[in-house]
Each structure stands twice: as structure tokens, then as C-alpha cells.
């Protein structure tokens, strides 16, 4: 009986935990940004504004759902869901502690990358379905950017894979028991920086948020969305960022490794993921947005060759030092 239920219960728990984390990550970001800007941030709803995300969610649920008359209705309505599914699926392969995860695939990281590449379909559906020129332009930018930054993202993420000698995320985590990959001489730091940069870009966060670009394209591909559909898109975006933060913590910061008893592992993992998230947030709130052509140039002319060279260098080091870990 229980064996049959486990494949249902574990994803249920993980999904809800992720939803909770993602909701509260918005509060974290807002508080963090507020501090950067000498503000207080949300403060009125609940003690220290702790209930703000819940209030936001309720507000968005109560809002009128507007569908533009000229919209491509089925596409417009489906887009938020198509956008959300990959953003949630990426958590499937992440092991939150030894043996605690939905599915520890032996191609874990590849699955992560493949699923997050699917996000673009939902994004494009939103951009097209809205029948709005801002949205369409934003979707076109999205294609440019996602294609450009998926490659450096993959190459940067492959460095720990090479070092660990496995695509399975749990094995990569275990391989860092001795030395977190971020501390791996030279290669680790460079790969981490490249990973952060391409995460910021692949997640469309400022200064690479040309999709949203509210000063040019108002709100980009989600300009026509309101109420719950808007909330779902927003949720998907934050989920993706949080997912990438977990991946970063797993690939470079030793996942659940940390002092204290073993059951503290998931907590350590969360703390590290939040550290990566705040790093991304810090970048977001400090830079002005750069232009489309400059973003593409940065990817194709700097980041892609750099990560490629880094990957080859890692391969050489791994071969020179003999068979990698595990």
C-alpha cells in the first residue's frame, strides 16, 4: 500500500515545499532590495511584513482576469501553465538530502537543462497569444537570449559534471564531500562566476531582463496578463530562479554538506541556495539593463568561448589527474 503511495506523496510534499519557498523568496528579495535602497520594504502585513506574500497571492486571485479581444484565446490561456510546468519539473531531479528527492535520475543535470529549455515554449505562447506588439517583441528577444545563454549555462554546469564524473546530481553532491567545487583551484571559481552570469541571463533577471524591460516593452511577454494568470507566470519565473539557485548550490557549494547532524542537510542546502539567490538578486538591483545586441555579443563573443575553454581545461585537468571521483 505505502509503496504504491510513495511516488505520489513525495512529489506532493516537494511541490508544496517548493511553492512555499518560492512564495517567500519574493519577500526575501523585496526585503533585500529595500535594504539596498535604504528602504524598509514590506512592513505592514503581519509582523515585519511576513504575511505580505500571502496577501499578494490573495490579491492576485481576487483580480479580474482580462483576456484581450484580439488574443489567440487557447494559446493565451494555456501559456501560463505551459510556462509553469517546466519551471516546476526542474525540481524533480534535485536531491534535497541523500535519498530525499523525487527522482534521482542518472542524467539529472541533463534533465534539468532540457526541461528548463522547454520554458521558452510557454514564454513564446504568451508573447504570441497576447496579440500585442510589446509582447511579441519580448518573445523575439526571449528566443535570442535563451538560445544564446543556454549554451554557456550548460558548459558552466558541465564543469562540475566533469570534476565529479557523473551526470547524477546526487553523485555530484557526494563528490564534493572533500572539497566544494567552488573552492577547486581556479577552475571552480571561474566556473561559478560563469554559472552565475549565465543564470542571471538565462533566467531573464536584470541586468539581462530585456524580456521584461518595462521601460521599453512595458512588461514584455506578460503585458496583457492579469490576476491569476499573471501570478502563475510570476510563480514560474521565481520557481525557475530558485531552481537554478538550488542547482548552483548543488553544483558548486557542496549541496547538503555542512556542520551539525545529518538531518540539518536540507536546511544547509536551502541556506546555500538562498545565498546563490541573493547573489543573483544583488546583481539585479545594482546594474542598469544592457541592450539586446550587447547581451548577445556578451554571450557569443565572451561567455561562450570562455566557458568552452574552461570546459576543455577542466577535461585536461581531470585526465591528467586520473579518473575523477566517485
Amino acid at each position, binding site marked *: 500500500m505505502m509503496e504504491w503511495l510513495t511516488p505520489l506523496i513525495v512529489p506532493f510534499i516537494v511541490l508544496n515545499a517548493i511553492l512555499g519557498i518560492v512564495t517567500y523568496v519574493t519577500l526575501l528579495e523585496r526585503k533585500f532590495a529595500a535594504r539596498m535602497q535604504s528602504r524598509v520594504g514590506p512592513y505592514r502585513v503581519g509582523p515585519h511584513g511576513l504575511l505580505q506574500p500571502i496577501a499578494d497571492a490573495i490579491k492576485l486571485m481576487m483580480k479580474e482576469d482580462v483576456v484581450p479581444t484580439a488574443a*489567440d484565446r487557447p494559446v493565451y490561456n494555456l501559456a501560463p501553465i505551459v510556462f509553469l510546468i517546466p519551471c516546476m519539473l526542474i525540481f524533480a531531479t534535485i536531491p534535497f538530502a541523500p535519498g530525499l528527492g523525487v527522482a534521482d535520475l542518472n*542524467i539529472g543535470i541533463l534533465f534539468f537543462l532540457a526541461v528548463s529549455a522547454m520554458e*521558452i515554449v510557454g514564454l513564446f505562447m504568451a508573447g504570441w497569444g497576447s496579440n500585442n506588439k510589446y509582447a511579441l517583441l519580448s518573445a523575439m528577444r526571449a528566443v535570442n537570449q535563451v538560445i544564446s545563454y543556454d549554451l554557456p549555462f550548460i558548459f558552466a554546469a558541465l564543469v562540475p559534471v566533469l570534476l565529479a564524473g557523473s551526470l547524477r546530481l546526487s553523485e555530484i553532491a557526494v563528490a564534493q564531500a572533500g572539497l566544494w567545487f567552488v573552492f577547486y583551484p581556479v577552475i571552480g571559481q571561474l566556473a561559478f562566476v560563469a554559472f552565475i552570469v549565465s543564470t542571471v541571463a538565462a533566467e531573464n533577471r536584470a541586468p539581462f531582463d530585456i524580456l521584461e524591460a518595462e521601460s521599453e516593452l512595458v512588461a514584455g511577454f506578460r503585458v496583457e496578463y492579469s490576476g491569476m494568470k499573471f501570478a502563475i507566470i510570476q510563480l514560474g519565473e521565481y520557481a525557475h530562479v530558485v531552481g537554478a539557485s538550488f542547482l548552483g548550490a548543488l553544483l558548486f557549494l557542496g549541496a547538503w554538506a555542512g556542520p551539525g547532524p545529518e538531518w540539518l542537510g536540507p536546511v544547509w542546502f536551502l541556506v546555500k541556495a538562498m545565498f546563490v539567490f541573493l547573489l543573483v538578486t544583488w546583481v539585479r538591483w545594482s546594474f542598469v539593463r544592457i541592450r539586446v545586441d550587447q547581451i548577445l555579443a556578451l554571450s557569443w563573443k565572451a561567455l561562450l568561448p570562455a566557458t568552452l575553454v574552461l570546459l576543455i581545461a577542466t577535461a585536461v585537468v581531470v585526465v591528467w589527474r586520473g579518473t575523477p571521483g566517485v
Partner: protein
Amino acid sequence: MTADAVAFWCLAVVLVGSALAVVLTKNLFHAVLWLALALTGTAGVFLLLDAEFIAAVQLLLYAGGIVTIVVFAIVVTERLVGERISQTSRRIAGGAVVAGGVLALILNAVRGQVFPAARPEMVGDLTRTVGETVMTRFVLAFELLAVLMLAALMGAIYFARPDD
């Protein structure tokens, strides 16, 4: 019926349905979305066959990459909003001949094959095996493919470049 079979038939319906939709939809953009669904369904079939690596690559390259490029091509080349593009071909006869030929070919290949009753168990790490085979036994073909891709890329750049 096992769970595998249920999943297979569900996927099959989705696959065939979406594949038909790709060619029957009048709206080009919708056709691409059906194509994305079809390709994702294919990835599902691979997953059922325990070929996780192929499934992931299918998603990464086809459902993610190729669909994006197709959509992009549509957006760049066609009138954007509200236009319906004719998708019917006037050369139905020729199409039927080609389709029939391909069908015959496939049927011919399938005919006479003996399918095992049960799927053999997976042995070892498939991903690792694929990697090793590609890098040893099929390294020449692999590299040739890479060269071909490079040539295609250069050709694309040549054609896309604005006339100076």
C-alpha cells in the same frame, strides 16, 4: 494491461493526434505548438524505453531548440498578427505517392521482424555506454557530423549576412 502499456497508449494517442494536428491546422503558429507537443511526446516514448539520455536530448534539442528556431523563423519571415497562411498543397498526387512509398518501406522493414515478448532488462549505465561508444567506436562518424554541422552553420551565416 501494465502501467507501461497504459502510458504507452496514452502517449501514442497524444503523439498521433498532435502529429495529425501539425499538418491539419491552418494556423502556422498553432502547428508549431502541436509540433512541440509531438516532440515532447516522442521524448516520453524514449523515457518509457528507459532511454533517459535520448529523452533529455530530445527535449533539449528538439522541443526546446528546434521549435524555438521554427517559431522564430515564422515570426521573422511572415506577417505577424491575424494572417492565416495557406497550408494545403496543390500537389496532392505527388505527396500521396511519396507518403505511400515511405509507408511501404517501413512496413517492409517491420514485416518479418520477430518482436520479443518482453523488453530485455537494461544493463549498466546507458548514458555512460552511449558516451563511450560515441567517443570510441563511432568517433569518426561523430566528428564527421560535427564537420557537417559546422558547414551548415557557415552556410547559414553566408546566406543570412546582409549584402555589403
